[in-house]
């Protein structure tokens, strides 16, 4: 396999190649048109896109690694670095923004002491801004993993975060 050197992060995750092969072949017919969805499944499995899995995908599906790297960096969902156990998505859509979403965003950054797209050292949280999750009527909204917390004020944040370990 080729060495790419694009990753800085620790890559000690073990890849289940049999499973990966099955996903590419059976769920997605080894079809290039399904690349984005295959990447979504890989990310769902490992919480990020491990380099080894992308190299395998590139070989298997016959798309140059450079293009797969292009996809992984073009689309904002994908992460090339391991992410925390809990993903916090703070909505900065317009409706949440005018209702104080930016202040919520600032406050969470203060509490966790990390910036956009970054993970806390203990791997507990990854913080990312998101542009609208379609709950505009209930803003400001913060999504943690699959839970949506609506009408969240600055003072409620700590209490909500405590529920996720």
């Amino acid at each position, binding site marked *: 396999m080729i060495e790419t050197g694009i990753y800085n992060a620790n890559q000690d995750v073990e890849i289940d190649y049999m499973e990966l092969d099955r996903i590419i072949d059976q769920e997605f017919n080894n079809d290039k048109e399904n690349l984005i969805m295959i990447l979504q499944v890989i990310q769902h499995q490992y919480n990020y896109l491990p380099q080894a899995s992308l190299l395998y995908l590139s070989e298997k599906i016959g798309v140059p690694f450079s293009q797969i790297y292009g996809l992984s960096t073009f689309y904002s969902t994908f992460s090339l670095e391991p992410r925390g156990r809990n993903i916090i998505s703070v909505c900065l859509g317009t409706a949440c923004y005018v209702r104080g979403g930016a202040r919520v965003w600032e406050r969470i950054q203060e509490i966790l002491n990390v910036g956009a797209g970054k993970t806390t050292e203990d791997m507990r949280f990854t913080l990312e801004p998101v542009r609208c999750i*379609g709950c505009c009527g209930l803003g400001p909204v913060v999504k943690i993993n699959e839970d949506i*917390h609506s009408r969240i004020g600055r003072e409620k944040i700590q209490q909500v975060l405590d529920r996720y370990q």
Partner: protein
Amino acid sequence: MQVGFFKDLEKITRDYRKKLYYPGGIKVNIGMASCGIAAGAKASFEKALERFPQGNGTQISQTGCLGFCQEEPLVEILGNGKPRIIYRHLTEDKILDAIEGYIQGDFNTKWILAQLRDPRSLLEDTIENPLAEVEPIEGIPFLEDIPFYSKQTKIALRNCGYIDPDSIEEYMAKGGYLAFIKSLSQIEPTEIINIVKESGLRGRGGAGFPTGTKWESCAKLDGERYVICNADEGDPGAYMDRSILEGDPHSVLEGMLIAALAIGSNQGFIYVRHEYPLAVKRLVTAIKRAEDYGLIGENIGGSDFSFKIKISTGAGAFVCGESTALMASLEGKVGRPRAKYVHTVEKGFRDKPSNLNNVETYANIPAILLKGGQWYANIGTEHSKGTKVFSLVGKVKNTGLVEVPMGISLREIVFDVGGGIPKKKKFKAVQTGGPSGGCIPEKFLDAPVDYQKLAELGAIMGSGGMIVMDHDTCMVNIARYFLDFLKDESCGQCIPCREGIVQMLEILTDICEGNGKEGDIELLEELATMIKRFSLCGLGKSAPNSVLTTLLYFREEYQAHIRGKKCPAGVCKALFHYEVDEKLCNGCHLCALKCPQEAVTGEKKEPHHIDQDKCIKCSICYEACKFDAILIK
């Protein structure tokens, strides 16, 4: 069973209509779209199901969204011969009491939003009103009369909130798939196109291209072609499509089937953004159910028409809402737009003719086919026909999804449907069209909602986001906000967009941070013109709109930032501070209790004081004060 013939469909419609309108016992419909779930509907659902397991006479069911997000979780309770009541804010602690109260005929009016006068959709005018014989409850308003609903006309949202989105039979009970079966057996493809053309329906995704004309150009071409649904609803502040997909996915499938018949396609795609997992789930179920009934698949209804639908999910790129980028992304590539010398209708997905319409556009189609093009064209204005769904959000009392006839004024939407601005604040602007749109000030509030009119004002109809702003919103900061969004979302391949937006953003950031200087406004205007003229795709061409409209209508606010070094709205932190008005402050001490920095001090019943060195301008005191004693200086 296959729905090959009218008779089969008619039977299902009849059977399920009975179940829908005359349930054996009590039926509880809990609004389980994303917004309902966010407000706690899932917990309510589980609680109700635990107390009333299926099969003991009280049926707990899920529905989509009734649109009134402000009042979620919304729950409707009905029973044979009893009124249909819509409860609001029915969280898990209240749901059982509400159901038991309903069973005993004891209605807690505090929890009630309204009762229904007529549950039929516009496609059910052939049947009697199931509530005609039911005695309404005195003192409870009818849903149809309360201001949020009275000015609405529901066509695209006709079933949202009234049926279980996972039940194809309930969709059929509301007149679903009749338009498709009719189109399949009785209407020639050219005639379908004529009906859609006659209706005057224009693309609801934003650009407003006439749908019938698009179908016609696609139908004329040779070879394989595709029907694609754009469900990549990327505009922040807009969630019409999510709500339709979550509440009535079959209406979209039926619209796509009819489009496929009209243009001669056998393969459909739905491109949904991955931020909408529930919409994807409901779509998957809907497609499976339609396949079970033989409505999607090979030789539908014994005809030679075959159609399949594949769902593709996006991965978080706003630009993929643009047609050429969307099709590149469908092909599994990076979603970069291309120049449209050749339209996607001719050469789109896989370089084949591709018909792309938005979710709401498709949802309108079955109704148009059944009621006729002329019927639809009778609603609205000269150039804008039918209705439009808006997500009415921001600083407005009644937030939610509203479907209003074209031609209604912005004032009616904001102040009648929306109930005006909360906390007695003053209206400042309404933003339509997402990042490509513009901000419309108060003096144009009487303008009708119409493609042309909104464009004349510098905004656009857009996909339907309508964000209301009050006097606490800084227009310079909002313009900066949109450019910051677009900077991240620009695909980066053409220089005017990639570099131009960054330059404009830097100037705006300087202005917001108090470093604005003379000439900045002119420079912004020059850059805006350049970006509009020379960008490759719609994203870049419309990117400066928010800056241009705010400069047009709120220029003095820019000048206040640049010359006066003041942010009149109290948003840009470098340009204002809070002060206590000693005459208005009665020393209630609330602000001091809430201040996270302990910057507010003062004895009770005495005017308080803010220590400017400690203050972080977080606005908590400003929002907490009930006496307007905290001033922005």
